[in-house]
């Protein structure tokens, strides 16, 4: 017994030694970094990257709030990052160790969420826009440059039951608010009610509120028009091509404007390896490394140096890299306070029930 115990202790000590190399703990979105990039960084730093994943900001915030710790780097979207900053959960960046920060397009720096980028370095972005089956839209003569196609019955009649919209209070309200000519961050209740009525009027024509399976439905050809994320629509098009479908899936930024979700790398206050984390951030700021993610999933890229490594068909896609005129109408969603959240939830319940 005693002997066994000693053997066990010895084993624990040995394994402890084996694990003594540096480990970087990365808490990232699902499928949000290419395996080659990780392998290259591991080689360069002679360390190991341990990844943990989340599929939405709320999940990440909830996990951190429940006491999860030990993450060096997290990649939250703007409003979630703002919430982390205000909770005092992040570590200010030592910019002297980020010489490649100059690669970032200034348009994506100094956001309202983190003025002066004290805590965050832009990583990648997603747009919430219109995705569609290009052949069907042409056949039916429907416009694809406006939210009207999602909200106006005169267009919807032609695609009844072939549309899905995001199952997200903020995103759908943002689309409706934008179509009505308001800001996506408008919090005036009367405007919310207008948006609600617009949504309820269009709802009978929609097939579902959907968060993820619309990728497959677009690919298969069951759904012709979606309100969705640029990465997902990119994925749907790749899948449709791979499956040899006779149609292409395309995306466009509506002229009324859309939501831009900028994800940034931040250091968690309790991360054990801040030095290594800074090294990782600077590594990801290298255009080549940054471009790999865009080439993999079609994410937007705030890194100017990355542009020359990005496949031309992606770099020239206006639904991923919008022209300045469309870019001017993009908005990032701000966090709502608790009363606004409660009111919005009630409006959402009405939308779902009516």
């Amino acid at each position: 017994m005693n002997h066994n115990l000693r053997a066990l202790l010895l084993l624990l000590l040995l394994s402890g030694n084996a694990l003594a190399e540096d480990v970087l703990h990365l808490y990232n979105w699902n499928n949000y970094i290419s395996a080659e990039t990780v392998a290259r960084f591991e080689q360069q730093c002679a360390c190991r990257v341990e990844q943990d994943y989340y599929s939405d900001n709320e999940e990440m915030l909830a996990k951190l709030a429940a006491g999860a710790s030990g993450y060096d780097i997290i990649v939250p979207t703007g409003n979630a990052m703002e919430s982390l900053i205000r909770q005092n959960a992040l570590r200010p960046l030592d910019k002297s160790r980020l010489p490649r920060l100059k690669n970032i397009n200034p348009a994506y720096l100094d956001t309202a969420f983190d003025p002066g980028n004290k805590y965050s370095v832009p990583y990648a972005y997603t747009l919430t826009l219109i995705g569609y089956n290009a052949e069907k839209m042409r056949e039916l003569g429907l416009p694809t440059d406006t939210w009207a196609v999602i909200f106006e019955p005169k267009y919807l009649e032609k695609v009844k039951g072939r549309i899905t919209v995001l199952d997200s209070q903020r995103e759908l309200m943002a689309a409706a608010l934008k179509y009505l000519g308001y800001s996506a961050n408008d919090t005036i209740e009367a405007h919310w009610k207008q948006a609600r009525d617009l949504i309820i009027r269009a709802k009978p024509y929609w097939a579902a509120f959907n968060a993820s399976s619309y990728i497959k439905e677009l690919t298969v050809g069951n759904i012709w028009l979606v309100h969705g994320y640029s990465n997902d629509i990119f994925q749907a098009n790749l899948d449709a091509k791979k499956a040899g479908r006779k149609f292409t899936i395309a995306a466009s930024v509506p002229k009324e404007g859309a939501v831009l979700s900028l994800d940034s790398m931040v250091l968690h206050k309790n991360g054990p390896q801040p030095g290594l984390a800074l090294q990782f951030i600077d590594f990801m700021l290298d255009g080549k490394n940054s471009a790999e993610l865009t080439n993999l999933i079609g994410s937007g890229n705030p890194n100017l140096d990355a542009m020359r490594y990005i496949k031309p068909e992606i770099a020239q896609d206006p639904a991923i890299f919008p022209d300045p005129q469309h870019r001017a109408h993009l908005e990032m969603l701000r966090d709502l306070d608790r009363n606004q959240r409660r009111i919005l939830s009630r409006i959402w319940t009405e939308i779902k029930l009516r």
Partner: protein
Amino acid sequence: MSSRARKLLAPARLTKWAVSGPPFVFLLLFFVLPGVIMVIASFRYPGEFGGLAPLAAADPNTLHGFTLETYRFFFSDLIYTEIFIKSFLVALATTLICLVMAYPLALLIARSPKKRRDLMVLLVILPFASSFLIRVYAWMILLGPQAALSQLANGLLGVLGIAPVHLLFSPFAVLIAMVYVHLPFMVLPLYTNLEKHDPNLLDAAQDCGANAWHRFWRVTFPLSLPGIFSGSTLVFIPVLGMFAIPDILGGTGDMLVGNLIKEQFLVTRDWPFGSTLSIMLTLAVLLFVWIAAKLGTTRGRYA
């Protein structure tokens, strides 16, 4: 009671405590305690970033302490009562359909030869061998517009001159999956009950001149009421709290109270209101079960 008898009983009591202790502690820790926490949470303010606002705050201007605002909010708009009623109707429909489908099956199993019975019960619980989510996702394929089921249904409707329908993302899809998932929970208690019936009772009824329908309605059915009630409870209550099926298969109007509660915790970050909704749901269920039990006892007495 003599002192000797009491002495004999002491170890028996100890055994009773030892046996019932662990489950008791388990329920206390993981059912009663969370319930109490939930009740307390429902009287508090939501925290700015989720969770709860502190009970005491250094700055008196920030929200803290206890409040009735979540209950006021609940009753300030009929929409919440409406979603409760809707969820109850869905749960009721699921329970009734399960009952109608499960009863003949349970009867068939209970009246089969002993050897075959075990195999049939095994077949009823076989779906549990695969993950719940996989089975629900499978319905997405089964109900999809390209699937044989949709083609057949729309083919028939086409003959009748009715416009084609979408089966997926509809209340129909939600109901069919609800029934599919919960059916075994109705079959098993019914079977356990029906299996125990004394066949002599039916023989006696026949000797007294009762026909097949009377034998069922006056003998088998009243005796099976406890099975019906436990089966119905096992179906009704989980359906009320279900959020995954409406999320996956539902259309634009298929929000149930389970989805609403889940949303308070995962999206809206409003723990107090989520707790209030849960408490109102528990109260509504208790009321419903109480009414059902009342009806059950009167029906039992009549039989």
